[in-house]
């Protein structure tokens, strides 16, 4: 059992994260079986899974790659809309909703990945603030396009048009109706599927990070020039992280959309991108476990504290600012560290992990 001995802190930390997700899943399933779950929480299970996937996938871009993307919701949108159209088509021939959903997720993931490449190839030549603003711009472009898209399905197949509804359809039904968005969505998303998607994405991210590709991605974050000096292809690894992240956001979009009967494109706007960013920052940049917890808590909590809902965004804003100052200002950081040391029994040794858990 050489591997067990070799299992370093990172691997152990990843195992804890997997276990946490599984335990949470089992507990919720138990609550569903015994009927001890409130209906409002039950209705949120699928969105929670979707947001968790959004958060961990954005964390891959922001925490691991170290580039700020403000258009993550755009990929979610691309996935949601293409995935639902695919689901509508597949469900004509396939009866099993689970298979339809899986196929739809694959389509949504691939479409989002393609959009990711289209966005990524130009965008990733930039970095820092420029990259952030251009991802924001792309998010808005995707939203703009989807809001003006009309897609119908009839016996002759799919019909598309832009800006004005000029579809000439022979009966059939509208799938995407411009600003009204997706209509008549088959509600095939289930909590079990959400759980599976979370696990799959976690598996991919953890294994990616702990491989040579993941190391290369983190090397770019730490020092681009040094990475080039050891022969690491900056653009291709940047693109890889970006596209994987986009594909996952697309799958999350399919899961999210198929939980509701109608979905509008404006749901996936800059505010959603920033909400997901809040999850990532609050959970800790690079920490997948943190993202999962933050996404779950911040999705459940507002429902429970409905009377404070108007303060929610205000609190998020303050949290973002305070978190950044607390983790980046030398004076504040030292004070906090000193404070933490006083109250912890064992001093944590220098951490050898950086992107996991």
């Amino acid at each position, binding site marked *: 059992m050489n591997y067990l001995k070799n299992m370093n802190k990172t691997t152990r930390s990843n195992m804890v994260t997997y276990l946490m997700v599984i335990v949470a899943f089992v507990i919720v399933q138990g609550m569903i079986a015994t009927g001890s779950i409130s209906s409002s929480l039950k209705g949120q299970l699928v969105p929670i899974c979707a947001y968790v996937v959004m958060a961990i996938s954005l964390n891959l871009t922001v925490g691991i790659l170290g580039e700020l993307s403000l258009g993550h919701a755009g990929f979610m949108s691309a996935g949601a809309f293409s995935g639902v159209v695919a689901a509508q088509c597949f469900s004509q021939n396939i009866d099993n909703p689970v298979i339809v959903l899986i196929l739809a997720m694959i389509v949504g993931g691939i479409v989002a990945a393609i959009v990711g490449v289209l966005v990524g190839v130009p965008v990733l030549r930039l970095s820092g603030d420029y990259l952030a603003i251009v991802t924001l711009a792309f998010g808005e472009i995707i939203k703009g396009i989807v809001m003006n898209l009309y897609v119908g399905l009839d016996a002759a197949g799919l019909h598309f048009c832009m800006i004005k509804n000029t579809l000439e359809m022979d009966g059939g039904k509208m799938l995407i109706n411009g600003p009204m968005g997706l209509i008549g969505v088959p509600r095939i998303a289930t909590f079990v599927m959400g759980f599976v998607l979370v696990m799959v994405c976690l598996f991919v991210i953890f294994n990616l990070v702990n491989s*040579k590709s993941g190391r290369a991605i983190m090397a770019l974050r730490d020092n681009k*020039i*040094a990475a*080039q000096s050891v*022969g690491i292809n900056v653009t291709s690894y940047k693109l890889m992280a970006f596209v994987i992240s986009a594909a996952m956001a697309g799958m999350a979009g399919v899961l999210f959309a198929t939980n509701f009967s109608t979905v509008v494109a404006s749901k996936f706007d800059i505010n959603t991108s920033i909400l997901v960013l809040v999850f990532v920052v609050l959970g800790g940049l690079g920490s997948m476990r943190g993202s999962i917890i933050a996404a779950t808590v911040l999705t459940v909590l507002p429902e429970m504290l409905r009377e404070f809902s108007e303060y929610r965004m205000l609190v998020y804003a303050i949290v973002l600012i305070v978190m950044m100052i607390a983790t980046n200002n030398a004076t504040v950081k030292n004070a906090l560290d000193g404070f933490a040391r006083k109250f912890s029994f064992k001093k944590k040794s220098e951490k050898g992990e950086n992107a996991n858990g």
Partner: protein
Amino acid sequence: MAKMVPIPSTGLLTERDLGKAPILEATHLGIEFGGLKAVDDFNITVGRTEIAGLIGPNGAGKTTVFNLLTKVYQPTHGTILLDGKDTHGMNAIQVNKAGIARTFQNIRLFNSLTVEENVKLGLHNHTNYSTLEGILRMPKYWQEEKRAHERALELLSIFDMQDLADHKAGSLPYGAQRRLEIVRALATEPKLLLLDEPAAGMNPSETAELMENIRKIRDTFQIAILLIEHDMQLVMNICEGIAVLNYGKIIAKGTPEEIQANPQVIEAYLGKKKED
């Protein structure tokens, strides 16, 4: 094709490397920044297993030469032949793959990663599995990761750093960071290693140890080393050939003895004597 006999007038070749094609031949190398010639008509030849030194006053353009050789900057003039192959049109990544590795004057490590991961990043292009094989944890992944792990520790042992493998690179003391940069560069299996002020910030005993290690590296790996250094003791001690740069131009070349006796060099370092 590689020239078999190096140009004697620009060469710094030791007898050991004579008769073999030089590893590096740079001719008429130059770069301008907005009309200012930072490096001009720079010629150097480095033998296969030579330890060569590049010295000169601050701001002479030494690091710029390294940046030209490693294509951090694209030269505006001249050619660079690495092992007889023209590196024209290559970028920094391709130059590294072709066989030049370097360290940086202002240390550039992957600070949030561990020492071992830093070295493994040096081994990146010699670790052979695809991203998919990595994600799916195929046998190839385990095999290659194990190999990389062992190789990384082996390389770290040159500087007796294997016990630091799990520490974060950013938490290492200054001297150890400089050594780690050398190990990381070595991991890319270069034919030519460029060291930019490897002894900067080291105390005399650390410097002495470093000198030993630089020789050891050359002997073990049979590679050429070109270094920039201000510590004259180190340079005169271990370099077999030295080139002196001032205001972007080479003003002298030769063995340590010749350089020490060269009036132009003394002038560049100490300034011109006032004539009464």
